[in-house]
C-alpha cells in the first residue's frame, strides 16, 4: 500500500504538470487516506462501478480530483494512461469530479461544503433500503468554514447516521495561508463533539492507523464518525510541503524533476 500511495503521488505531480494547472498540495496530503480507502477499506468493485451494495465515497473537497483519479485508475476503474488527459477538452477527467462522466465518481463536487449533505442523503437511502453499505466522505479543513457543513453535521447526528464516516484532511493550510489565520477552525475536535459526532484524531499519513480508525467508526453505533486526519499539505515533495503556494498551482518542468526524484525515495 505504501507503494500505491507513492504511485498516486507520482501520478498527481505528472497529471497536474501535464495539465498546467490543478491542485497538487491538497491532493498530496490526501494520498494515504484515499489509498487506504480504495485498497483496504471500501467495499467496491471497479468492474461493476454501479453495484448497488458498494460503499460510496464522496469527495467533498473536489479540487483534489487528481488524487481521486489517480487512486481510481490504480484500482482499475479506467486506464492509468488516461490520467494525463486531466483538464483537457473532452476528457472524462474534469478539473473537478463530474458524476456520470467517469466510472467511480459518485457525485459532482467542486463548490465546497456540500459533500457531507450528499453523504447524508446516501446514508438515509442505505437505511431505507436496509443495505449495510457505508458512506465515506473526504472534506478539506478550510472547507469547514462553510456553514452548510454544520447544517449537515447537525442533521447526521440528529438522524443517528452511523453509516457515515467523514475524513477531514487537516493540513492546516488554505489558499491565503494558515487556517487559523484565515478563519480559525480550532477547537475543531470539540466542535464535532458538540455536534454529536464520534471523533477520532489520527496521523493522516499512517496507513494502518487510517484503516483502524475506519474500523472504529464501523463499530460506533448511533452516531456518525469524523476522523480528523492530521496531514502535511504537499506531503512527499520537499518544496511543496507546508507551502500554500501549491494549493492551486502545479510545478514547473524543472520543479517536476525534483518532485519526481523526491517521490522516488519517499515512504
Amino acid at each position: 500500500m505504501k507503494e500505491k500511495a507513492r504511485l498516486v503521488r507520482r501520478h498527481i505531480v505528472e497529471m497536474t504538470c501535464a495539465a498546467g494547472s490543478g491542485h497538487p498540495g491538497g491532493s498530496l496530503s490526501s494520498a494515504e487516506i484515499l489509498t487506504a480507502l480504495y485498497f483496504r477499506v471500501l467495499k467496491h468493485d471497479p468492474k461493476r462501478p454501479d453495484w448497488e451494495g458498494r460503499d460510496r465515497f464522496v469527495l467533498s473537497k473536489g479540487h483534489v480530483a487528481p488524487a481521486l483519479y489517480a487512486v481510481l485508475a490504480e484500482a482499475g476503474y479506467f486506464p492509468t494512461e488516461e490520467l494525463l488527459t486531466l483538464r483537457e477538452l473532452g476528457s472524462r477527467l474534469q478539473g473537478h469530479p463530474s458524476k456520470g462522466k467517469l466510472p467511480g465518481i459518485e457525485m459532482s463536487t467542486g463548490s465546497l461544503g456540500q459533500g457531507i449533505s450528499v453523504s447524508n442523503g446516501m446514508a438515509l437511502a442505505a437505511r431505507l433500503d436496509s443495505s449495510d453499505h457505508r458512506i465515506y466522505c473526504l472534506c478539506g479543513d478550510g472547507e469547514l468554514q462553510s456553514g452548510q457543513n454544520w447544517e449537515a453535521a447537525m442533521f447526521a447526528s440528529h438522524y443517528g447516521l452511523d453509516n457515515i464516516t467523514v475524513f477531514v484532511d487537516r493540513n492546516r493550510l488554505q489558499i491565503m495561508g494558515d487556517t487559523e489565520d484565515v478563519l480559525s477552525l480550532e477547537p475543531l475536535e470539540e466542535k464535532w463533539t458538540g455536534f454529536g459526532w464520534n471523533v477520532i484524531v489520527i496521523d493522516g499519513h499512517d496507513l494502518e492507523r487510517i484503516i483502524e480508525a475506519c474500523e472504529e467508526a464501523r463499530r460506533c453505533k448511533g452516531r456518525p464518525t469524523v476522523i480528523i486526519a492530521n496531514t502535511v499539505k504537499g506531503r512527499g515533495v520537499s518544496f511543496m510541503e507546508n507551502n500554500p503556494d501549491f494549493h492551486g498551482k502545479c510545478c514547473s518542468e524543472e520543479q517536476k524533476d525534483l518532485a519526481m526524484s523526491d517521490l522516488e525515495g519517499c515512504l
Partner: protein
Amino acid sequence: MKKASQRSFFGKALAELGEADESIVALDADLGSSTKTSDFAKVFPDRFFQCGIAEQNMMGTAAGLAAAGKTVFASTFAVFATGRCWDQIRQSIAYPQLNVKIAATHCGISVGGDGASHQALEDVALMRAMPNMTVICPADANEAYKATIAVASMPGPCYIRMGRADFPLITDEDAPFEVGKASILRKGKDVTLVGSGQMVSLCLEAAEMLKEEGVAAEVLNMATVKPLDAEALIESVERTRCVVTAEEHSVIGGLGSAVAEFLGENGNQPMVRVGVRDSFGESGDPEELMVKYGLTKEDIVHAARKAIARKQKKKGFLWRK
C-alpha cells in the same frame, strides 16, 4: 368561480405518489404545515425527512437520496428554495442531473402580509437559467396536482412553482396535462395572452373584457416555462400577430423573458409583458398588491391594447424618454 389551494393539491398528490411508489421520499425545512408535505409525512413517516431550518443541507441531502435511486421531493418557500440554495441546486442536483423535484410554495406578490422578504419574484429566472432544469408554473390547483404526478415519472431535476393563496379553478380535473405542453384555454384571432400561474385566470378574465371591445383574445396557458412550448406559441402568434405575457414574477428572466427571447430570434411580432417591474414587493392584502404592482386583468387589457396598436400601426419604438 371556485377557488382551491395549489399547496393542498400538491400535498394530496405527493401522498398518493407515496402510496404507489416506495422510492418516493420527501424533505421539508420546518414548513411542512405550509408546504403540505405534512400530508405525506403523516402516512409515510419513514420516508419523510424533516431537515429543520437548514435548506442548503436539505438540497444536498436530496441529491444524495436521488443519487441512491430515490425520487425526491424537496419543499420549502420559493425564496429559500431558489435563492438560498441556488448553488446547492446547481452543483449537487442540476449538474449531475439528479432526480430531485423542488416543490416551492409561497411564490409571487400574492404571498401578501409577509412582505418582500418572502415574496419570490425572481425564482423562475433563477431556475430557468440553470441547465437541465425543467420549470413548471401550474395555473391552478388541478394543474399543481397533475404536475406533481407527472414530474414523479420524469427523470431529472424539476422546479414546481406554487402560490400561497387559493387560486380560481380554471382547468378541468380531467383535462390532460403534459410537461412541456401549453394549452389553449380560449380561442381568438386578435392577440395572444400567454400566462403562467394564477395570471392565466386573469388572462381569461381580461379576454372577457376585451371581447366587449370587440377584441378576440386567445389565451395560452404556458404551464411549463422551461422548456417553452415553442410550437404552441408559433401556432397561436402566427394567427394573432401580437402577444402579451402575464406572470406573477419579475418581468426579468421569467415567462415574459422566455417568450421575448424566442420571438426576438424567431419572429417580429409586437409583444408587451405584464409582470413586476424590477422591484421588490411589500406587505399588504394580496388583492391590493396585485393592483399596486400591475398584475390585474385591467393591466392585461391595457397591455393587449398596446400590443394590438403596434401591430396595426406598425409603429417603431414605443419607448420614449
